[in-house]
Each structure stands twice: as C-alpha cells, then as structure tokens.
C-alpha cells in the first residue's frame, strides 16, 4: 500500500484553480519528486497535503488514514513533516534549540531529545553553527536547518519544499547525499524542486504539474523524454524540434 495517496485533490482560491483533480501516490521507502514550472501549483499541493490549506475537493490518505482537513500539527504527529520553501527559522533560538523543538515531538524526555537533536545536527553538517541564533545563518545554513528540524521529528514521510534552491553546487551535492542517507534509514521522501537537475538522479518517480494539472507521473528517465513535460518546461517549439530530432534518430 502507498504511504501517501493523493486522490483528485482540487484547490481553488476564488475563481483561480491552483490544483485541478491531482492524483498520485508515494510508495513507502521511495523518493518522489514533484516538479513543474513556476506557478504550476507545487507549493499549493504541498500545503494541502501538510494541512496548511484545506483542499476544496478530493482526499488525502496517509498511512491508511484519511487526513483531509487535518491541522498541520495533527499531520506532523502522524509522521508527515515538511520544510518550508521560504525558510522559517525560529530566529532568536539557537540552531540546536530549533532542532530540539522538532526532537521533542516523539519524546518528552530531555536526554533522548538532546541526543536526537545532536544526531540530526550532525547529519546536516550544522555542528559548527549549533550555538548560533538561527536568524544569523546564511541561506544555505537555514535550508539545512529546515531539514535537520524536520528530520528530528522522526518522520515516516519527509516533505521537502525546494530545499536545494539557492544552494551552491557543493551544497546541493551534500544535500543529495543526505537525502540518499535518509532513504537508506527508511524515510520516504517527497521533494518539490523547481530545478530538475538536483532531483532527477535520485528520484524513483517524478510527478509533473503544469497549470495546476498533473501532466505526467513516471520514472525520471521516461519523464525527460515525455513530450508534454518538455513542452511545459521548454515551450512547444522546442518540443517539436525535439520530436523531429528524435524521429531523425539524433537523440536516443
């Protein structure tokens, strides 16, 4: 059974339809990439799944339970935890205390929570910054903090919203390593990325949104050859050229 099952989720803001009957599944233990051009409705869908928005229609099933309309903290307690695209550090608390708040989700015992927080700080390479107020971190540091904090809650499903955006290529590399390590540790990941390059090599499945509609759901290597995806990203002209070249045998 899929860990996350998104069924016909529709989200309207007045007349604007941000998500139109989007359906897909996230299998347990996999990495699923959610991509699409700007304004495709990725973050809206993310907010629906995490309870920050209540979908206008459809259902969201997580770990066998219908969580449609649950509040964010209820969903987090069930084990689906997110990061934010626009980073939200708890500014005046130290990096360590930020992560500690996450660690306290599964235990009220101080020693256990401190140990968990230290572990997640180490995974995300934040040791040297842990005593700093979170507000003083660089953007890359804040992104890693988002990840560490969510990780500290021991989630079943970790949902990352553009966690690699704004990172240097070295930082992206480190993040990819961390993500792979997490999957080995048994965490299922759903990753929203605007940039395809970061997510393509590690995802088991890609879900592509365009204009609020799901246009493709497939393995990454098939997604890059999908006409509608190419059209959404690169425009109709390029898609035609791509098709022509493919037919001419120029691209395998």
């Amino acid at each position, binding site marked *: 059974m899929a860990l996350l099952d998104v069924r016909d989720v529709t989200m309207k803001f007045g007349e604007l339809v941000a998500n139109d009957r989007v359906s897909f599944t996230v299998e347990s233990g996999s990495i699923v990439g959610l991509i699409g051009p700007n304004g495709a409705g990725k973050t809206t869908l993310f907010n629906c799944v995490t309870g*920050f928005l209540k979908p206008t229609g459809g259902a969201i099933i997580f770990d066998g339970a219908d969580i449609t309309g649950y509040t964010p*903290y209820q969903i*987090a307690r069930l084990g689906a*935890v997110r990061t934010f695209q626009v980073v939200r550090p*708890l500014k005046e*608390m130290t990096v360590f205390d930020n992560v500690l*708040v996450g660690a306290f989700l599964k235990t009220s015992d101080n020693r256990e929570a401190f140990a968990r927080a230290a572990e997640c700080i180490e995974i995300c390479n934040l040791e040297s910054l842990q005593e700093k107020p979170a507000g003083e971190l660089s953007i890359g540091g804040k992104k890693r903090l988002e990840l560490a*904090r969510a990780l500290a809650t021991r989630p079943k499903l970790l949902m990352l919203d553009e966690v690699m955006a704004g990172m240097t290529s070295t930082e992206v590399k480190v993040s990819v390593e961390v993500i792979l390590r997490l999957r080995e540790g048994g965490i299922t990941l759903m990753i929203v990325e605007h940039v395809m390059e970061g997510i393509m090599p590690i995802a088991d499945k890609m879900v592509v949104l365009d204009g609020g509609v799901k246009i493709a759901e497939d393995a990454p290597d098939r997604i890059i050859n999908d006409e509608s995806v190419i059209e959404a990203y690169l425009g109709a002209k390029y898609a035609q050229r791509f098709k022509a070249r493919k037919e001419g045998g120029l691209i395998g």
Partner: protein
Amino acid sequence: MQHKGIHKKDAYWLGFIALLTMLPMVPAVTANSFHMHVVILILLFASMSQAWNIIGGYCGQVSFGHSVFFGIGAYGAGMAVVTYGGMPWPGILIGVVLAAVVAVVISYPCFKLSGHYFAIATFAIVEIFHRTFLVWDWVGGALGLDYPLVKEGLTNLMWYDTKTGYYYCALVLFLLIFGTVRWLEGHRFGYYMRAVREGQETAESLGVNSTVVKLAAIALSAALTALCGAFFAQYNLRVDTPMVMSLDMSMKFVLITVLGGSGTLVGPLLGAAVLIPLQEYTRAFWGGMGGGVDLIIFGLLIILMVVKQPAGMIGIFYAVRKRILKRNIAAKGESADGAP
C-alpha cells in the same frame, strides 16, 4: 555544551537565594521597616512579573490583562477573611483555580487574534472587570474590603509587629515562581512556548499544538499571578478594585518585565529591583508633589530603554560583557604579538 553554562548560572542563583534568606538577620535592615517594605515589594513584583513573563515573554503573547488575575487572587483571599470571617487559605486556593479558568475562557477567543490585536483585546477585558467589580456589592463594590484585626501568624497569614513574616512569605512566592520558570526553561513545554513565540506556523509544522501551548501558558501564568494577588491583599490588609484590578496595575507587569528583559529568567528581578525602589522612594519623598512622579520616571526609563536597548537591562549586561570579553581577547592578542 549548553549544560555547563546553566549550572554556573544556577550556582549564582543559589548564592543569591542564600543571601535573601539571611537578610532579615541583618538588624540594620529589619530595624527600618520601610527598607523591609521595599525589599518585600521587590520580591513580590519580581514574582508577579515573572508570572507574566511566562505568557508575555516566553510565549510572546503580550497581555495587558494580568491585573484581572491578580485581582481575582486578591479578592479570593480578601473575601475569605472579610466576608466569610475565616482563614485566607481556602480563598487563595479558589482564587488561583478561578484565575486559571477565567484566563482560559477569555483567552480562547482572544488567541484567535494575532499580534497586537491580542494585546488590545486584553486592555478591554481589564476595563470590563474593573467596572464590574466596582459596582458589585458581593465583592465589596466601590468601598472595597477592609481586614479585621485577627491573631497574627501563618494560619491567618497576617503579621502586625514586624514584616519578617511577610518577608519570608514573599521569598517563598519568589522561589516558587522563579523555580517554576527555571524548570520550564529546560523542558519541552518551555521550548514549545518559545517556538510558538518565534513562529507559530513553524511550530505547528513540527507537531506543536500552538493553541494548547498558549492556553496552558496563560493558565499557569494566571494561577501564579493570582497567588501574588492574594499575598498583596494579605500584606495591605485591604482589597479594592483600583488597587488590584486596574490598567495601572496591569501596566506594571509589562513595564517591569520589559525593562528588565522579557523572556529571560533574571529580567523580571532586574526590572523590579530598579523600578520598585524608584516607585516607593519617590512616593515617600516626593509624595507632596502630587501623585504620579514615580510614573513619570517609569515612563522616561521605559522610553530610554526601548530606544537604546530593546532587549532590556539584561541586554545591556550582555552587550557590556561582550565588549569586555572582546577587549580582553584583543589585549591578550597584542601582548602575544609584542612578545619577542
């Protein structure tokens, strides 16, 4: 890591508490009952402000309604003694519980308002309670409650000859409230309160039910505030609405904490140690100039503080310490460079 610093801080606190415990044994202090009075008030107002600090400082929900809870505690004790002619204790207990209940009932709708709107709503609540109690005969109305002469001692929580009894009661109150906050600082609930202050949505995304955290924080804050109110009634041997349940009183909770440094353990004590002597000595020496001299100085100090160092006196302390540390490091660096 973090633990070392905390232990060192706790050692300072223990030393300070030991000093406080021995203070009444210094004859020079006890001989002048006015000094004793000032010290008792410092302990009381530090405790009140620390109770406010739980919701206002740590949890970030600025309340101007704390005189309501303070008043409920004061009336609880006052009515037990004056209206029902008994010991204050059952009244204190009822007041404490009632204050927590009232806090939850009035805060639940108010917490749906964010930021400044919550603060404004609490202003209105003080006014409602103030007016109601002023015309409510059962609680003494505009005349207030005057304590009868009863046997002094702990049973009746009243002393007439010396203030030493009151002093130790204030010290117990101080230890209880500061101890509670110190304990909270290091535990899950304390971290959750700060997380809610720093970012409610972020906290929720990590599984924190922010409504429950805020309600629990204000219930605890109100209960401890009511306890202070009860002591205040026992100490003054009188309760009336302008004295305990007014905006004036509400402002003191906020001003003392903000001046000292809100959201810190030592802030309320620093604030009270500066503002209370100021209030009492100006009242005593310049009282003839008409009421309110103390409030003028209060106001000036707060303006200065907010402009110069919004983090409060504790902020100044940290800034100075940082500068000294830097200078020390610089000095060491120079001598090292200068060495052949």
